[in-house]
């Protein structure tokens, strides 16, 4: 379990985001959406990035890939993919990387698929853009293979259809087929199942497991749904107010959280079994971007907050083997765990 978290220097992380700061310029003020966030993704691993709306979980990944448009702007930080500095790359080089070695899956396939081009033509285009040597016939054959692989029945016929002729679940499958068309090393999946019904979500999660086996691609799974992360991810990064507040393996984070926000989030979830009574919410609401003054952004809602939390911003520090927490008092949470066990 712990070996997953810190890749050795020989292997090295596939993606490394460090101290990323992203701002959005508004009419009156500039809002900092990401405030020094970072994480690493090892080759082949699935990293879940969770957080509520406004936590910066999507903006972090999108701006790391150069997909942020004005008024958004990456102010500072380092993004390294397989040894190359993405922030130093020209837009052309970045475009070649995206859709090739780095692929993306979005929440709403209708925004990612072109409504006036057949699904087959879109998959073929994705293939030939990144593999110029591929013949027309080979591209057609590969497109049918891909669609069959992602579980779209009648692939040959489906290739000639337009996205609107697909159901929501089938469109998500088609987008996944496009994403894995060029055998990527890294897949960024932003809320890939959020728009789907739960029985269809189960199918798509299963498909993501299958594609991971087939391609061996590392995956960054961005979602607000803790259940989806628990099912699919190896490691978890928890974000709050533009920063990473905790990270570690799924077992570490879900079974023994060592940041009060993570614990609060897990406690507030309604459940399918056990106590069906009152829920345990986190009091208050998350700060609006730009609202955080000094100190810990979670302090106003935190049951453990003390004077120090209001003045000193906690940095991520090791809170156990292969895990870190940005809480001044994560030792106390670890002690509680051992007390509970005793």
């Amino acid at each position, binding site marked *: 379990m712990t070996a997953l978290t810190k890749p050795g220097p020989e292997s090295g992380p596939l993606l490394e985001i460090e101290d990323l700061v992203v701002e959005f310029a508004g009419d009156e003020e500039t809002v900092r959406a990401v405030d020094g966030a970072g994480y690493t993704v090892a080759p082949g691993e699935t990293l879940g990035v969770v957080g509520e709306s406004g936590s910066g979980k999507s903006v972090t990944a999108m701006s790391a890939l150069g997909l942020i448009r004005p008024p958004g702007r990456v102010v500072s930080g380092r993004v390294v993919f397989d040894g190359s500095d993405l922030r130093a790359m020209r837009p052309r080089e970045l475009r070649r990387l995206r859709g090739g070695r780095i692929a993306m899956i979005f929440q709403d396939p209708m925004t990612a698929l072109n409504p006036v081009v057949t699904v087959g033509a879109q998959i073929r285009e994705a293939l030939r853009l990144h593999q110029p040597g591929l013949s027309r016939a080979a591209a057609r054959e590969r497109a049918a293979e891909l669609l069959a692989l992602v579980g779209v029945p009648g692939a040959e016929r489906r290739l000639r259809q337009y996205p609107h002729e697909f159901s929501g679940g089938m469109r998500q499958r088609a987008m996944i087929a496009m994403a894995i068309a060029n055998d990527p090393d890294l897949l960024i999946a932003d809320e890939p199942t959020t728009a789907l019904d*739960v029985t269809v979500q189960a199918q798509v999660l299963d498909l993501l497991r299958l594609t991971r086996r087939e391609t061996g691609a590392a995956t960054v799974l961005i979602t607000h749904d803790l259940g989806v992360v628990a*099912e699919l991810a190896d490691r978890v990064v928890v974000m709050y107010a533009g920063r990473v507040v905790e990270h570690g393996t799924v077992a570490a984070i879900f079974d023994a959280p060592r940041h009060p926000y993570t614990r609060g989030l897990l406690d507030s979830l309604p459940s399918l079994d056990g106590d069906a009574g009152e829920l345990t919410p986190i009091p208050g609401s998350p700060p609006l971007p730009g609202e955080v003054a000094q100190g810990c952004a979670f302090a106003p809602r935190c049951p453990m907050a003390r004077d120090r939390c209001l003045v000193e911003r906690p940095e991520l520090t090791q809170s156990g083997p292969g895990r870190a927490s940005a809480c001044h008092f994560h030792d106390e949470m670890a002690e509680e765990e051992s007390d509970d066990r005793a």
Partner: protein
Amino acid sequence: MTELDAARPDRAQPEEVLGVTGLTKHFPVRSGPLRLQTGSVHAVDGVDFSLPTGRTLGLVGESGCGKTTTGRMVVRLLQPTAGRIVVAGRDVTGVRGAELRALRRDLQLVFQDPYASLSPRMTVHDIIAEPLRVQGRYDDGGPERVAGLLDMVRLAPAHARRYAHEFSGGQRQRIGIARALALGPKVLVLDEPVSALDVSIQAQVVNTLRELQRELGVAYLFISHDLSVVRHVSHEIAVMYLGTIVERGTRDEIFRSPAHPYTQALLSAVPRTRPGAREGRERIMLTGDVPSPIDPPSGCRFRTRCWKARDICATETPALTDRDGVGHPAACHFAEPADVLATA
């Protein structure tokens, strides 16, 4: 937890405040240059349920199952194609004008989207006071009533002078609930009331709804796709699929011994976070998509995706009745309770 467990059999069932029988809605499908009707969408097809005073019925299902259409017919935003709606003993299926206005006092709707359902031009005070004004009841202690409602939904009195856009999603949903409660309704129809909210906020609103029910004795028809949220608010649950109720029972019956294959698949598909529940269980994986409601399958509507389906399922529509060894109504020829949430 105890107030929900008041469903003990030794207690007399409270009086029915909302009853629905044979509720049906078919939307015409028109096509061709003359816009002739060529078919109809069977959005809701013969739904029956009964909601007792002060209790919650959870109506769950996936998109297109007809749960929202059912809710809209109950509050008379949509006219049913067939069926009967009875509120507090009175048939309200066809009421209009003054009678419909009177019905609005007893029955109110809370929308899913707290951003779209509140006017940006009105202060919170005016939003909540609007139903009182429409019913001519504002002059009689209106301001005090609004202050009381704000307090009820845990908003500060000072919030009354502000505009809806100044509030977060959770606070806006509280404003929507206060407005719905203004006339002291007997029933609230809540359509996905917490689905747009983040989990930490969702839990706050769920708790407030529970408290309000305890204080006011208002009944809820709670419409949601989220099974775990429904479990925390409902006394009874009805599961819908393609326009019909496929299973109905108490909270524990539905979650601990679901008997319809669709309910079992639905519960089994929910991703779990709790250690032990995450791994080590057989998942029921449904194949394919929900068929079109324009031409629903013959017999049992779920049979095209069901692993238990046999010939009889195509020819004979299974009734929603309590079969031997089940203990609650399930519309399946082969209904059999199974604890799908149990972990090995």
